[in-house]
């Protein structure tokens, strides 16, 4: 009798221990995951699926890489069929509509203890999306050798120093484009917006924009930032034929020293390093603007993982989201900034640390003003992260249009003020 009890309890113990560390066979079904990482679908994400299936063997994960992600996702969101897990897009849908499209992931106050950057994907205290990685929103990716050979010893600390450096490169190497604009790709012009908080030095600046009628006036951050874009093109410190530039080629050209630098977010560092003979030769420096001796850099989340509110497999979808956020180490693998509270920044940003750069995150707007700046922005048909007005600036600098920089800025102010009035902002 004693033996029987001993044996039974031993077996039970083994089963218990085994069950604790083993797979969850209860979770089953197929989930479709939409992602904008089209370059990782066939390699990195396959590894993730394998690891995920080790824990959840009965869940089948189907990946869908989408190239023009935001527009395609928006169109699909007019139906119920937009995957089970997707990368969250906003504006549209406006924050007030998040609950119509995305499954709530939890209370913001609770999730904030574990994850950062929840503001853009939350509304009314509920979070609908969490990003697995963040990036420095804006900075300058440069070829160290080109700068060194042109006689530049230290990264520029002011915009005038920056101009001088670019001129030095142009003088020393007439065939090298000091700063490559990449004007046809459009999004490359939008990358400049990542530097706005660097120039503003104020985490609350984006919210303040909703309360001013003239954000594009001289002396204000937007004016200062984009004047650099204008001046670089006007003074021919960019490529000779801006209309035929090519993003894919430009990465290789930067890696090979045919380009001095480009204005990009920190996500681009690993992409260009992969193409360079000596990866350490590709450096990343903050935008040359300091306020009272201090340099600021904005850290912003990448697309957030979200769950389709119409999903038939929410539990499995949640399991995948949790895997991406907690177990995949996605941020570390892609050399971006992890979003977990207290996580270390990647070593590619050591240069920033050495310069004493102060990292800032965009501050939450007051509850009543969630989404207000974006609303005014869209109504004004400007688009702080859209390219038409930036193309306008480049075209004016090229001489294609008869406008001056101030003409454009005045026009943008007029549109902004009109939009503010039309949405009733105070």
């Amino acid at each position, binding site marked *: 009798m004693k033996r029987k009890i001993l044996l039974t309890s031993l077996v039970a113990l083994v089963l218990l221990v085994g069950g604790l560390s083993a797979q969850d066979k209860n979770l089953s079904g197929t989930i479709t995951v939409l992602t904008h990482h089209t370059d990782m679908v066939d390699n990195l994400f396959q590894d993730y699926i394998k690891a995920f299936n080790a824990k959840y063997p009965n869940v089948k994960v189907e990946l869908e890489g989408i190239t023009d992600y935001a527009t395609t996702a928006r169109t699909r969101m007019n139906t119920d069929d937009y995957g089970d897990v997707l990368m969250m897009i906003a504006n549209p849908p406006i924050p007030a509509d998040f609950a119509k499209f995305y499954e709530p992931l939890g209370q913001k106050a609770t999730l904030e203890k574990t994850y950062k950057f929840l503001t853009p994907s939350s509304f009314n205290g509920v979070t609908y999306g969490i990003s697995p990685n963040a990036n420095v929103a804006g900075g300058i990716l440069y070829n160290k050798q080109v700068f060194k050979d042109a006689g530049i010893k230290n990264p520029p600390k002011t915009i005038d120093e920056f101009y001088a450096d670019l001129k030095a490169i142009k003088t020393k190497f007439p065939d090298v484009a000091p700063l490559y604009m990449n004007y046809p790709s459009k999004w490359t012009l939008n990358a400049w917006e990542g530097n706005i908080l660097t120039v503003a030095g104020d985490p609350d600046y984006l919210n303040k924009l909703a309360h001013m009628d003239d954000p594009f006036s001289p002396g204000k951050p937007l004016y200062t930032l984009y004047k650099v874009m204008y001046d670089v093109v006007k003074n021919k410190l960019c490529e000779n034929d*801006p*209309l*035929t530039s090519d993003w894919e080629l430009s990465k290789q050209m930067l890696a090979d020293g045919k380009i001095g630098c480009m204005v990009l977010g920190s996500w681009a560092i690993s992409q260009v390093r992969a193409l360079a003979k000596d990866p350490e030769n590709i450096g990343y420096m903050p935008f040359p603007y300091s306020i009272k001796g201090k340099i600021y850099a904005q850290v912003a989340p990448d697309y957030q993982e979200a769950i389709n509110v119409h999903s038939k497999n929410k539990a499995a979808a949640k399991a995948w989201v949790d895997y991406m956020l907690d177990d995949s180490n996605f941020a570390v693998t892609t050399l971006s900034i992890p979003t977990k509270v207290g996580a270390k920044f990647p070593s590619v940003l050591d240069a920033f640390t050495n310069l004493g750069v102060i990292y800032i995150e965009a501050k939450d707007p007051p509850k009543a003003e969630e989404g207000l700046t974006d609303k005014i922005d869209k109504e004004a048909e400007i688009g702080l992260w859209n390219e038409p007005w930036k193309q306008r600036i480049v075209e004016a600098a090229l001489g*294609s249009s008869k406008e001056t920089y101030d003409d454009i800025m005045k026009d943008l102010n007029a549109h902004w003020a009109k939009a503010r009035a039309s949405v009733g902002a105070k």
Partner: protein
Amino acid sequence: MTSVFHPSYRNEKRLIIVLFLIAPLVLLFTFSYLPIFNMFSYSFTKWDGLGEKTFIGLQNFADLFTREENYKVFKVSLYYFAGSFIQLGLALYFATILSFEVKGKSFFKGALFFPNLINGVAVGFIFLYFFRDTGTLNTLLRLMGLGSLAQLWLTNPDLINYSLTGVSIWRYMGFNMVLFLGAIQSISAEIFEASELDGAGRWQQFKYIIFPSIRPIVELNVILSVSGSLSVFETPYIMTGGSNGSMTFVIKTVELAFTYNKFGLASAMAIVLTIFILVLSGLQKLLFKERA
């Protein structure tokens, strides 16, 4: 003796016609008429694509006519409009010569039509390389010693629309030519023989025999070219994205819809363009009828 299961010959014929027509009609309705009808209703609303649709009546249309950019884009259409006449002229010319005995006739027909078969995106990329500062055209000019003629074909705002119109002509001329060829070949060979016996030259043959016979096709091609030049989209969108002064009406519409999420306004623009083309086509038909 006829019943549902044993229809008469006439009814059977009708049934077959209806069944065969259902498929294309369903497709036509689903992918053409239904979207146009929906777009018509969107044009009276303010809508960002995902949120609520707010009814605002004719405000979008009023807004359109006060926008300065719209007049700029019509100016750009004029380049393509003028280009379409060059295109038709060339098409008619080649169709005429190639309908007579010419060495290598088939080769030329194929070569001239070939551009029409290439995908629009591929054409865009070919010519992006072609027009680069270090690209095909400039390199060729420099090789021939005409380096002084080398330009920044796309970056120069005065040249960009000419360059893009040229691409358009290159691409679509073959299509017009083939239509003309087909029409010319339907003219009876006896008439040509008779005219040659009478001593008619090539130009006379064209003026008095060919042109009158292919009038309907010319009319069709003019309508296609005019409406095509107003709704130019693919070539400039792929090559320059509508930047540097090459923005056309349709590119502006797409920008309003997908960059600024103003679907109501964009729908209104599309409706205005449709009405404009319908009116123009109607006018052309009237003009041609009068002559006859």
